[in-house]
């Protein structure tokens, strides 16, 4: 690997007023040189001269320098991991983006260009993001920047998400309501390196009639096809095949078992008519869902229909059938009051666990936020549809186990292949171009970036390996597994014997 200068100064003609300069990945051990091209004008953005105190290993003494240092730090992390003989250029700006008191865009990034049928292209007629295409071609096919990144300089100022602020340290120690810029950048840069599909999210046509390299790894086990082998209509239907869309790449597949935890599920053993594993959403509070789990019978918790909650099933008030709930797993409906209030109430009634039924349609069980140190029982959620199925059988007695099934991985499907995010309805941009939110521990490329993400790239790196970022790998090196049509849930059903 060619060692390059650790930093350089560079003009950006397109922005004549900008005091443009660039900083490259500094680590001499970098396998790729990633250059941040500063596109800001003087005195703003990366050039903001406002004084700042060094924080979390970021030595900058101005806001602008700290921002640029954070970008460089993220670039250094990726630069030390990727492999390319061609400099990767990221055009970056820190500028006011749309924002108001209650919401706003933090930033955005993505590939600046795509190429196909370039010299040494592994797959003909296939789009590659320009940074990857350059690597594969061994030359800079598109002089200029490969990735665009623009971030919001107004965060935390009057009228713009005043409750939040950027955390510019390198140590992963963002405080409450601080936004860890390095973690966000690691995610965003990955999209620029190729972690995305270019498939149109309205009619599901391929970009200019050609597949993209990411798309060639999208396998729908329900349809039994890869996305690049589908018609537009088939891709549209496939986009909402929740739990059936897998990443078909040997690099990721090889690392899922060492990365992912056992899959938390709600297993029903009786009645037989509804027996099986049900997907669950986890809570930030309460007991962890373990491989041992909690075994019990489901009982609907009842509470008064009052000002706290108008339904007798919402558990927003103290439970009135505590004698029935005690020692069992309480079923409650979502709505009106916070999750933590419901959990507190059913726990006070003696429940050994809580299953929350969503009050809105959706294919993904809600992940429950909140902080409740006093809640010590496991709290999980299920979809509205599954809740209806289960509630209909409560009178017969529903035996359940809330546990982490060691035979399955949280976030993976058939043959330990990673699940891609495919909720129903389709979420433009979020769907498919991210890992599924069932992944545990949280992964860098989930659509919801967890605030506790470490500054590591977990399964993102093998995904980039699969699309060609390293020698002797990628689609040209390893044939994809043949598509398989799976009519039923691919996971084995679990039957609990009392």
């Amino acid at each position, binding site marked *: 690997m060619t060692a390059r200068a650790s930093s350089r100064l560079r003009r950006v003609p397109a922005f004549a007023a900008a005091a443009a300069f660039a900083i490259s990945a500094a680590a001499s051990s970098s396998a790729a040189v990633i250059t941040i091209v500063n596109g800001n004008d003087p005195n703003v953005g990366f050039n903001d001269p406002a004084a700042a105190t060094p924080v979390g290993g970021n030595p900058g003494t101005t806001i602008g320098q700290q921002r640029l240092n954070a970008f460089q730090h993220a670039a250094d992390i990726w630069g030390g991991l990727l492999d390319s003989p061609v400099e990767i250029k990221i055009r970056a700006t820190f500028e006011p983006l749309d924002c108001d008191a*209650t*919401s*706003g*865009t*933090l*930033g*955005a*990034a*993505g*590939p*600046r*260009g795509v*190429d*196909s049928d*370039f*010299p040494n292209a592994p797959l003909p007629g296939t*789009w590659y993001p320009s940074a990857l295409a350059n690597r594969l071609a061994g030359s800079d*096919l*598109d002089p200029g920047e490969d990735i665009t990144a623009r971030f919001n300089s107004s965060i935390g100022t009057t009228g713009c*998400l*005043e*409750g*939040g602020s950027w955390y510019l340290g390198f140590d992963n120690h963002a405080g*409450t*309501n*601080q*936004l860890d810029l390095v973690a*966000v950048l690691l*995610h*965003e840069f990955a*999209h620029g390196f190729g*972690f*995305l599909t270019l498939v*149109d*999210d*309205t*009619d599901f*046509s391929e*970009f*200019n*009639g050609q597949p993209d390299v990411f798309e060639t790894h999208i396998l729908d086990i329900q349809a039994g096809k890869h996305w690049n082998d589908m018609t537009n209509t088939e891709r549209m239907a496939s986009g909402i095949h929740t739990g059936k869309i897998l990443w078909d790449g040997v690099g990721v597949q090889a690392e899922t078992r060492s990365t992912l935890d056992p899959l938390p599920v709600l297993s029903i053993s009786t009645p037989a008519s509804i027996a099986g594993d049900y997907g669950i959403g986890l809570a*930030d509070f309460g007991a962890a869902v373990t491989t041992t789990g909690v075994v019990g019978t489901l009982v609907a918790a009842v509470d008064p229909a009052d000002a706290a909650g108008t339904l007798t099933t919402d558990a927003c008030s103290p439970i009135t059938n505590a004698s029935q709930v005690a020692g069992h797993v309480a079923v409650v409906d979502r709505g009106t009051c*916070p*999750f*933590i209030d419901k959990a507190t109430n059913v726990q006070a009634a003696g429940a050994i666990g809580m299953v929350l039924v969503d009050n809105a349609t959706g294919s993904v069980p809600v992940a*429950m*936020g*909140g902080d409740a140190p006093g809640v010590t029982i496991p709290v999980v959620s299920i979809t509205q549809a599954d809740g209806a199925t289960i509630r209909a059988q409560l009178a017969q007695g529903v035996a359940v186990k809330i546990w982490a099934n060691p035979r399955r991985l949280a976030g993976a499907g058939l043959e330990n292949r990673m699940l891609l995010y495919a909720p129903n*309805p*389709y*979420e*433009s*941009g*979020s769907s498919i171009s*991210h890992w599924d939110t069932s992944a545990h521990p949280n992964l860098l490329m989930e*659509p*919801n*970036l*967890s*605030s506790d993400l470490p500054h590591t790239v977990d399964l993102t790196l093998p995904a980039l390996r699969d699309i060609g970022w390293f020698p002797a790998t990628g689609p040209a090196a390893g044939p994809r597994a043949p598509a398989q049509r799976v009519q039923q849930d691919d996971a084995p059903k679990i039957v609990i014997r009392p």
Partner: protein
Amino acid sequence: MSRRFFAGAAIAASLAVLPALLLADGPVVCPAIDHPAPVSASAPGIRAAIDPATGALRTPTAEERMAASARKRAARAETMRNLEVVVHPNGMKTVDLGDAFLFDVVVETAPDGTIGYRCVPGAAQAPAAASKEVR
């Protein structure tokens, strides 16, 4: 989210490269410019939102995500309309995507004060998104 387009339409772009090609040695082969069908691509990004009642960052609701998705599709369709595919003499195709495939990151405050980010397609005025819902 704005997008930087190639300057001008296809003809204008072709004319723009012509002088340079005429100055080159050897046979002049003009890169062809193909017009891709309008598409509304997906682009990753990041946003956030604050609960008006508590001032805490929160995750977007499903309804907010759907509304954002619809807005983004419409915005991106417009964004993508003028992308051009340049076909080089060796058969290579290149497309300057500008900002068409940027992924926004949005964030919202939750009632419990926690922060969450969500990555969504760019090119639109989407409502904030965030980590997790709390009710």
